[in-house]
């Protein structure tokens, strides 16, 4: 538990969110490419790699919001 708190306290929220945005953009670009191009590799990538990246971006977002919330609560005391 203490380790988790330490991890969250050191979490670089702003930077992590920007990284999440870039990863999210890459995922969305792959999805759009799959639908627009419709070629085998693009379609396969849009249903696999793109979704993995999307989940990663979403996880980064979740951790960042949690870390931010924890930091605010900690700072308010």
């Amino acid at each position, binding site marked *: 538990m203490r380790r988790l708190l330490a991890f969250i306290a050191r979490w670089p*929220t*702003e930077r992590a*969110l*920007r990284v*999440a*945005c*870039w990863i*999210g*953009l890459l*995922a*969305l*670009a792959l*999805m*759009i490419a*799959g*639908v*627009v*191009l*419709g*070629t*085998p*590799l*693009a*379609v*396969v990538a*849009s*249903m696999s790699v*793109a*979704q993995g990246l*999307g989940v990663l*971006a*979403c996880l*980064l*977002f979740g951790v960042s*919001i949690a870390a*931010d919330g924890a930091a605010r609560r900690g700072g308010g005391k």
Partner: protein
Amino acid sequence: MGSVGTPIGAAAVLTALAAASLLIHHIVVRPKLAGTTRLKLLLGLAVLPFIAAVTTTASGMQRTTEREFCGSCHVMETHLTDLVDPTSLSLAARHSRNPMMGPHACYTCHADYGMLGYPMTKLKGMSHVYYYYLGGYRNWDLRRFHAEVRVAKPFPNANCKQCHSGTLSSFSNVREHLGMQEELESNRVSCASAGCHGVAHRFSKRPEEL
């Protein structure tokens, strides 16, 4: 030549673009992490991408049943040209002229039916993409492909019977069908074989296979 023109494809692209604009805004403007910023990020990183992923997958599943998709790797070109040739008499071509299944002719014949047919067909299709790009077929010429590549497992008669139930008199009045019930049931004789309805793709066979 993709699926942007279909409703589901358009929905996928529009939600993805909406999410992307929120993300670009965040990267460029670098706003403070206030309530509205969080809400925008929730939309741009979770809600909209989720919708985009679902619609992209639906559109991709649809796309992978189209005959142009199947014909887009060069080793499948002749299969597609024969199929769409209005003068071709091959069994495959004769199954591609009605508007209901014609545009998806490869898939409707080659998809295995049954409960797990749909996902298993898609998974096996993935292995074809793998063989093509990493297994070397990409560098094969058509002559070698036609000479060496055959169906991985005998084409199941059950696939034909998905449409041709075999219960009407036009089927059961045929003497050959009656005499071969057992062989047809057990797949020992294929409906699409020499002497019966002929192979589906004639051009890819050696003369002794026809």
